[in-house]
């Protein structure tokens, strides 16, 4: 690990200032991802601005029934929050299926959004990686790509976003609140993470000097009946091969409301808009669930080791929706 300067910001203004004025500075949340990457010399910031002292550590209920979750709230605190568990069970489940208890106790909400891919070649200096060194090439494409994308990948990068929490947030239409040198703005969740295209090193819409202040979750009554299902290589403490976050409202055997997002399949949490479109008003039964899954996965492309994820994703969608529909 390279030596670096460390500063702890007490208020937002100082944080933004430190971040934009210090060359090659990075924000430090729980450090569970950033410090790992620094130890591997993948991230080499000259300075860290610790945000955990900022007054962004609260979960607030909004009058409309939604929630605002501060950027530095620990993952565990979100998962155990009674309102989260009651109104957004898929979010609580997504979090507890991620990492380990110890990591979740440290990890912050913003850090979780900003965590980087677990691509084995991204982690290895001896490998070529466009995300680490733009233009270098991508060793994952012809290498071990079991954990890699089946949707929205490019010839430059096939990495996935590893977060579980973000899959639930994508399904919930959350918004990301940020502040920067030019003031505050709000980013729709689906616009926050990017597809790799030919710039896989640019992962989010966050601009230099900006920091995340929190997440807004709009009210969504039918999310009380929601599920997060994560399929992985061991029973716990492994990243998702495929995950599905879904909320479903059925009325008279028909789909009245549906939210569906996939994890482990793309460079970003994947909102399954195509499947949602197919399902709107459709019969809430296995045939239409399968149709919707087929439609969503139609553009999917498998590689040597992750081809099975296409079928796995379809089955998991059908399974989760079936469970929510009570079948």
């Amino acid at each position, binding site marked *: 690990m390279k030596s670096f300067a460390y500063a702890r910001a007490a208020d937002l203004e100082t944080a933004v200032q430190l971040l934009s004025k210090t060359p090659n500075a990075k924000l430090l949340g729980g450090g569970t991802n950033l410090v790992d990457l620094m130890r591997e010399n993948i991230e080499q910031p000259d300075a860290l601005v610790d945000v955990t002292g900022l007054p962004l550590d609260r979960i607030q209920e909004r009058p409309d029934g939604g929630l605002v979750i501060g950027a530095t709230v620990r993952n565990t605190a979100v998962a155990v929050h009674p309102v989260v568990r009651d109104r957004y069970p898929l979010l609580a489940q997504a979090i507890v299926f991620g990492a380990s208890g110890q990591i979740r106790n440290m990890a912050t909400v913003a850090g979780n959004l900003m965590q980087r891919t677990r691509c084995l070649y991204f982690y290895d200096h001896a490998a070529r990686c466009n995300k680490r060194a733009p233009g270098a090439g991508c*060793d994952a494409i012809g290498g*071990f790509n079991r954990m890699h994308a089946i949707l929205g990948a490019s010839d430059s990068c096939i990495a996935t976003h590893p977060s579980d929490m973000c899959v639930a947030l994508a399904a919930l239409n959350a918004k990301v609140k940020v502040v920067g040198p030019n003031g505050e703005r709000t980013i729709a969740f689906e616009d926050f993470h990017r597809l790799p295209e030919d710039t896989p090193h640019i992962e989010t819409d966050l601009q230099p000097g900006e920091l995340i202040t929190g997440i807004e979750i709009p009210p969504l009554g039918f999310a009380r009946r929601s599920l997060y299902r994560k399929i992985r*290589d061991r*029973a716990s403490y492994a990243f998702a091969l495929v995950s599905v976050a879904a909320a479903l409202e059925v009325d008279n055997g028909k789909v009245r409301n549906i939210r569906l997002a996939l994890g482990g399949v793309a460079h970003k949490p994947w909102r399954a808009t195509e499947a949602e479109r197919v399902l709107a008003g459709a019969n809430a039964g296995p045939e239409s669930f399968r149709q919707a899954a087929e439609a969503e996965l139609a553009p999917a492309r498998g590689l040597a080791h992750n081809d099975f994820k296409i079928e796995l994703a379809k089955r*998991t969608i059908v399974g989760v929706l079936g469970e929510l529909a009570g079948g």
Partner: protein
Amino acid sequence: MSVLQKLMETVVQFMPDKAPDPLIHKHGYLGTPVSRVDGQRKVKGEARFTAEFEIENLAYAVPVCSTIAKGRIISIDAYDAERSPGVIAIVTAENAPKMKRPPLMDVRHMDKGFAASDLAVLQDDKISWDGQPVAVVVAETLEQAEHAASLVRVEYDEKAARVSFEDLKAEATVPSAVMGEDPELEIGNAQKAFAAAAFKVDNLYRTPHYNHNAIEPHAAIAAWDEDGRLTVFDSTQFVNGCKHALAGMFGLDGDDVRVIAPFVGGGFGGKAALWNHTALCAAAAKVANRPVKMALSREDVFRLIGGRTPSEQRVALGADKEGKFAAIIHTGVTATTTHAKFPEQFSLTPRHLYASRTMSVGQKVVNLDTVANTWMRAPGESIGTFALESAIDELAYAMKIDPVELRRLNEPERDPTKGTEFSSRHLVEAYRRGAEKFGWSGRPAEPCSQRDGKWLIGQGVATAYYPVFRFPAAVRLRIAADGSALVQAAANEMGMGTATVQIQHAADRLGLPLEMVSFRYGDSDLPDSPIIAGGSSQTGSIAAAVQVAVEKAHRELVKLAGNGSPLAGANVEIEARDGGLFLSGEGNKGETYASILKRAGRDFIEVEETSGMPFEVMKYSMASYGAQFCKARVNRESGEVRISRWLGSFDCGRILNPKTAVSQLRGGIVMGIGMALAEETLLDTRRGRIMNPSLAEYHVPVHLDVPHIEIIYNDIPDEHTPLGAHGVGEIGITGAAAAIANAIFHATGKRIRDLPITLGKLL
């Protein structure tokens, strides 16, 4: 096999057995679940592991590892690294002390010690594997050394590396020997018998590279004194082997090297041989002229320390109408390197398990440009039983016969290939007891016949097998005037309970309470002998030596007691009890150790003894056996596998300490679950580089993957082994992967012959 070896085996058949040890049937501390004597210290964090020793003036070393698998170093640019804060020295081939090539293991010369690879690195510009150390950076702190190491730039002349087992297995050749045995063995005409058999199966089974991943990464601390003597703290399973191998490399006398390892945080075979980092640590200490510590990171462990070879095995079984085996054909290929020469012995397993009219077993090996492969828990038997025990299950389905019954039908009366008598084999009894406890008879015979919602359920069974080894061992025993005893042996404690069991043993043999006995170990300054925590041999090896040492001490004590003692000229047997020696059956006629020593004006007596050659192992067919029963649930939708129940029924001779033995067996099964379902070292064959060198990406089982593991055992002593015991350290992993694959077949009707059984294979 050499002529001499053959002759020896014949001669041994006519040698009389040693008189059975009376302690085998005596009820004492042995056989009771004594808690580990070091348990409290470990739980409190007081036990010191290698990297934790506080040494004055210590410097920290970090290796720089090659990122190519084959070729030459053109240049090493250490300009920035040398100027980085805290750097003391950068050791490369330019300035490293000369080191001779260490020997590889030879079962006949265990006493000389051995290394996993016979390359002494940093001696030239040659690169033999990706991960080979090309430089060592020594600095004032670990962080400074790590940072400086990242600044070292190496330019290579890269050559095409041979790293793909899949691509190269066709080039495999027959090695000269497999663990000292002939690599190929034919009994009758197996091909013909197979062709004519009424029932047959013939399939290929594949197992991947695996790594041990002991909780404690390898570490060493090395310090030279003014007289050129070397002291090394090393996380080793074999202090004496480490000492001799190091002495050889540095051209020293064995007595000029001392290796200390009181606690080792797991090894599983990965710490049995000397590995490069220990020698490099000593080399760095020499260059830096200071004590140096090299504690490998998890990634370094993957790069510097090898694991289990991949294998491809063919098992073809033929049976006649009555279910008797007509042919067992078990052949295949493993990988090794030119510098390790270790063809993992999977083909020894089928030689001793089942009766068959004909047999054809053998193995080939192919050299790859990778880190040296090495022993990993039950080398040979773990992968060998996966293939063989899967095949037997397949045959049972083909014949519509119960797989337990098929094994019972083929239980041999004598060793199937050596023709020797079994010293103690009660595998059928282990199956009987296991099947009863597991409720095997209630299992539907047909696959795919049990379901719980989305989960398909199946039960599988497989035989566990691991041979008995014993090595000559030396121990020193001191009995003091306060009535206490101290057993000393250059033994190794990786957490198995070695010290605990030897204390139980010595207490019983000396007639002392547990608290009066202590055990010193983990130091090569103790009597020199090849006591290795390997081959599940350590407990038996030490026990044999403790027995002769105690006998010698008793003789000396009787002499010392002199004519005035009630022991003098006794014509009844003398027995050790109540803290001393007493006449058998004559109440308190006798004398305590304390009294004898005090009368003689002695503070203590001390004896040293060595146990003899393991002739019994040659005379008899000796092994631990077991029956692994498990229940698997397979998610129909996702292919996820959950093991929901496990019962291991073992036949390992007398169980000396149910607590520690059961822990060993359970640990082996946990490792078997990992082997079956999740573990795999990902070697990118384009470059020969390991891509998942971390516990986040190399998936060992987590708690949720492991059900409660029930262990039962026959507890039938073997009259021919020390204390009547067989090894328990390795057998747990054997048969486990097959039991799982068999249960998965029973659940789903899908036969998976490629490990690990990840969920994509079951979709």
